[in-house]
């Protein structure tokens, strides 16, 4: 095992552990903070995998924007401070389906890749990814800009206060 492998195992264990706490904790605000740890560990994994630009975009958009939005939503829905007992539905189907899909995918990928070893490619810097986005993937990029505009307008329309008021 090389140094990159040790880093991958450590960051992966951190991400999975924090993700498990996100879906099991009884505190709403702590779930958001564990999500920060999980997404930060994933950004570290991207750095080890030489995806520099994706790692920094992950830190900017996920840790910076999405988690802040989620914490705003937690506060705006008047989440109680402290542990709350009514966060979970009872029952084993969730554990069965979730564990089954996760372990099944893990077994599938382990069987496909075994303990093979690949060399890390050249780093995905902003220059190389920029030339890829604006060279080969221009049409999906423009479609995504239209989708972002539609999502913006949709969020504003949904948030209008007169929705649901009976005439």
């Amino acid at each position, binding site marked *: 095992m090389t140094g990159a*492998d040790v880093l*991958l195992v450590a960051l992966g264990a951190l*991400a*999975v552990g924090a*993700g*498990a706490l*996100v*879906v099991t904790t009884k505190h709403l605000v702590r*779930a958001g903070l564990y*999500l920060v740890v*999980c*997404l930060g560990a*994933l950004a570290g*994994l991207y750095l080890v*995998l*030489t*995806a520099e*630009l*994706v790692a920094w*975009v*992950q830190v900017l*958009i*996920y840790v910076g*924007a*999405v988690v802040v*939005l*989620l914490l705003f*939503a937690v506060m*705006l*829905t008047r989440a109680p401070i402290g542990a709350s007992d009514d*966060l979970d*539905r009872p029952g084993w189907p969730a*554990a069965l*389906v*979730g564990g089954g899909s*996760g372990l099944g*995918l*893990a077994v*599938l*990928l*382990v069987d496909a*890749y075994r303990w093979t*070893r*690949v060399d890390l*490619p050249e780093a*995905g810097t902003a220059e*190389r*990814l920029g030339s*890829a986005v604006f060279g*080969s993937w221009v049409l*999906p990029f423009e479609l995504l800009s239209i*989708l*972002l505009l539609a*999502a*913006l307008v949709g*969020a504003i329309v*949904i*948030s209008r*206060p007169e*929705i649901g008021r009976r005439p």
Partner: protein
Amino acid sequence: MRPVVPYVTAALLFGLGVYGVLRRRNAVLVLMAVELMLNAVNLVLVTTDTTVRATLPHGGQVFALFVIVLAAAEIGVGLAIVLQLYRLRATVAVDAIPLAGADGSPAPADPEPTTAGADEVVQA
């Protein structure tokens, strides 16, 4: 670099996300679990980009960027829906939302004054 390590991490994160979506009652926590699943997919894309030599270089990382943008749009619209739900019903529990017609009765229909008025005009 052993590609099996990040692949197994991504598979376990996806399983945790599925578990969270099915188990949680709070809609905000359901959205957090959806984020876990999207991040697992991103990790698979980035790992594949380093493992497989494709014709177009860095296609996997470009798609990871696209998925991040999609997740940002999803979380914006999803949280707008959750906040509107909280304003209307004062709860964000996903199993406390009555679906229209779930109890056998149809969804409340609007009265139709225009057609009735048109019939009277025709009869007059």
